[in-house]
């Protein structure tokens, strides 16, 4: 702007009074200093003295001076921008190199031709591909299975829409399939065209697996809770129902819809509320209350007995935020227990009663036996003794018949003495305490055979005793058993010119039977039932003497061991006596 007379020029005259006149300025030239098209300042030439007219050279000079200032200003500013730019670039590179996300810059070189320009170390680490594998190659060739379609679509969408696109997707990599959350960022050029896209991928495989597992376990848990026969209830910290499963519905009669958000008093009778409050406070304070048995009330008003297992639910800060409970209706169980307890108690009373009765009976039997042993024999001794005295003292006064009578009296009293002894022996078998040890039956049988044979050296008997026969039992009682069985065999083979007596074992249905066989008089199987009854005989005394007590005694011994004794016989051929000393627990008990 050129003002020849500045004091009158309309563009400058407003400065006349304050600025031009006090300083004596009459003419001036103003040239604009601009930077990037913006007015930044002015170069001013001012003249003091009479007003004058500026020459064209002077005007040109002022403009040139202003342009020079503008140029200098512009150069200085450009330098500042470049520094900032370098700074920014350096920061981005830092981020690029050190971020844990995989970053790859792809440059479009034609339709579906995206070439990897660069990638960061995290990308190498995550994908297992090196820069050498990737840089300069088309993305479709880099990945073993190419780029999935969904990814290509995201790519196009980013390119066309010029917007950031995010996708969660799997990728088949040399290290196997991994899942990624990838952000596609368009990198527009100055023209606005999108030729580059930055792909930033975060490996979320572990996260996804964890989430998947969590979901599965949650589903399983829910399934369990729904299926469990135990009522499963969750309470809020205020004691309101948060969840209520099918079993809880069944136990208490309230549907989940009815129960949800209701206070726990819904199922607690008034009488037990103080008790429950104590438990609840303990639970909330995490001081126990985890197990309780108490009365509850159902929707229909019926009282039931329930067993509760409670767990306080605790948040990360250790605060109780609610309670989870498992509950079981034990009413029937308790009733049964009570029933069984009472039944047991009654049974015990009855057993005790019977035991006392039995003890009394045993005591009476004991006393009876003692009395028999002592008192019954005394008169017999007198009968025998005085008969003998009579025979001795009055021998001459008695005729042959009289002497014979007295002899019969003596024989009868002696026989009665023996009968009493046999009876006592029989009862002693029952009363004796059973002491089980391993008994060598073969040895026992051999000794008995010898003692039977000894007084009868003239008798021809072939004894066949199997070696190594053993049994668990009371040695004294087993001796009585074998004495009776072998003694019987010896007695009933008395009329054989050559007697054969054997003792051995036979296997039957996987168990061992002991057997005593003889070739003696035998017996008729019709009367086998009488064989083991006391004082029952199958032979007359003039055939074979005896009291009919031996086999009854033998059978008692076997029974006391929990075994069985039975016989097979044929008249004039012989007899076999079988016995076991224990029977299978669930054996046929009707065999006896």
């Amino acid at each position, binding site marked *: 702007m050129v003002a020849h007379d500045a004091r009158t020029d309309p563009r400058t005259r407003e400065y006349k009074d304050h600025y031009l006149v006090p300083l004596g300025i009459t003419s001036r030239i103003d040239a604009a200093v601009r930077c990037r098209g913006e007015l930044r300042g002015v170069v001013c030439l001012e003249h003091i003295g009479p007003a004058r007219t500026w020459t064209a050279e002077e005007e040109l000079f002022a403009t040139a001076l202003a342009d020079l200032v503008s140029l200098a200003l512009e150069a200085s500013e450009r330098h500042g921008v470049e520094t900032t730019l370098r700074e920014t670039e350096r920061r981005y590179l830092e981020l690029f190199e050190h971020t844990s996300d995989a970053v790859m810059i792809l440059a479009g070189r034609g339709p579906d031709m995206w070439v990897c320009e660069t990638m960061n170390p995290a990308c190498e680490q995550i994908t297992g591909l090196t820069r050498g594998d990737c840089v300069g190659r088309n993305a479709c060739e880099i990945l073993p299975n190419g780029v999935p379609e969904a990814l290509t679509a995201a790519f196009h969408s980013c390119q066309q829409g010029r917007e950031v696109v995010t996708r969660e997707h799997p990728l088949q990599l040399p290290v196997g399939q991994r899942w990624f959350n990838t952000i596609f960022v368009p990198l527009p050029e100055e023209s606005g065209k999108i030729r580059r896209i930055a792909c930033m991928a975060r490996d979320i495989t572990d996260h996804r697996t964890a989430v998947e597992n969590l979901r599965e376990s949650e589903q399983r848990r829910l399934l369990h809770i729904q299926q469990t026969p135990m009522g499963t209830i969750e309470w809020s910290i205020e004691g309101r129902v948060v969840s209520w499963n099918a079993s809880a519905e069944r136990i208490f009669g309230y549907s989940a819809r009815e129960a949800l958000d209701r206070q726990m008093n819904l199922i607690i009778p008034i009488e037990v509320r103080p008790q429950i409050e104590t438990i609840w406070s303990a639970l909330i304070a995490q001081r126990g209350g985890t197990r309780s048995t108490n009365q509850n009330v159902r929707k229909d008003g019926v009282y039931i007995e329930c067993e509760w297992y409670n767990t306080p639910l605790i948040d990360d800060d250790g605060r109780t935020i609610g309670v989870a409970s498992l509950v079981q209706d034990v009413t029937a169980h308790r009733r049964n227990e009570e029933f069984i307890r009472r039944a047991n108690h009654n049974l015990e009373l009855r057993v005790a009663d019977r035991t006392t009765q039995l003890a009394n009976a045993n005591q009476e039997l004991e006393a009876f036996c003692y009395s028999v*042993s*002592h008192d019954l*024999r005394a008169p017999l*001794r007198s009968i*025998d003794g*005085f008969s*003998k005295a009579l025979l001795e003292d009055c021998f001459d006064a008695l005729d042959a018949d009289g002497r014979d009578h007295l002899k019969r009296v003596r024989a009868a009293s002696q026989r009665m003495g023996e009968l009493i002894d046999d009876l006592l022996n029989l009862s002693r078998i029952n009363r004796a305490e059973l002491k089980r040890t391993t008994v060598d039956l073969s040895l026992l049988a051999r000794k008995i055979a010898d003692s039977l044979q000894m007084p009868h050296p003239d008798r021809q008997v072939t004894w066949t005793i199997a070696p190594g026969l053993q049994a668990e039992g009371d040695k004294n009682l087993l001796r009585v058993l074998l004495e009776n069985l072998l003694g019987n065999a010896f007695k009933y083979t008395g009329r054989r010119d050559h007697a054969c007596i054997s003792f051995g074992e036979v296997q039957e249905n996987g168990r061992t039977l002991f057997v005593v066989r003889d070739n003696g008089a035998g017996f008729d199987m019709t009367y086998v039932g009488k064989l083991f009854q006391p004082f029952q005989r199958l032979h007359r005394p003039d055939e074979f003497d005896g009291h009919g007590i031996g086999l009854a005694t033998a059978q008692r011994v076997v029974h006391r061991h929990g075994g069985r004794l039975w016989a097979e016989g044929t008249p004039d051929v012989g007899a076999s006596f079988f016995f076991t000393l224990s029977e299978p627990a669930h054996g046929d008990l009707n065999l006896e």
Partner: protein
Amino acid sequence: MNNGPILLVEDNPDDVALTMRAFKRNHILNEVVVARDGVEALDFLFGTGAHHGRDTSVLPSVMLLDLKLPRLDGREVLKRLRSDPRTRLVRVVVLTSSKEEQDILQCYQLGANSYIRKPVDFDSFMTAMGQLGLYWLLLNEMPPPHDEISP
């Protein structure tokens, strides 16, 4: 031969008669003192009751003791006998009908010297009495008088 009396403790008069007969038949001529229960037996031994004033230094050469007796039974007599220094060494043959194991065991534990079961058969009884006399009166050496071995 020990000439001291035989003390027969027996409540059954038949048995007393038969025993005396057996002694006679076996030529045992010792005096036989009969006590009909345990109390009488102790009275004789300690010079009390009916036997007050008896010279108790004369001890029976052998004592035949039945177990089942009125008032004081045989076991009790045996117990008292063995716990008194004056009678500790008196030889006692338990002569009884019982052959219950527990009786036999108990008698030996209480200090009986012998245990004989009375057989019904008088012939056996005779034999037993004969053997008893032979052993206890003839063969067996008496212990010296008790004051010589007092502790």
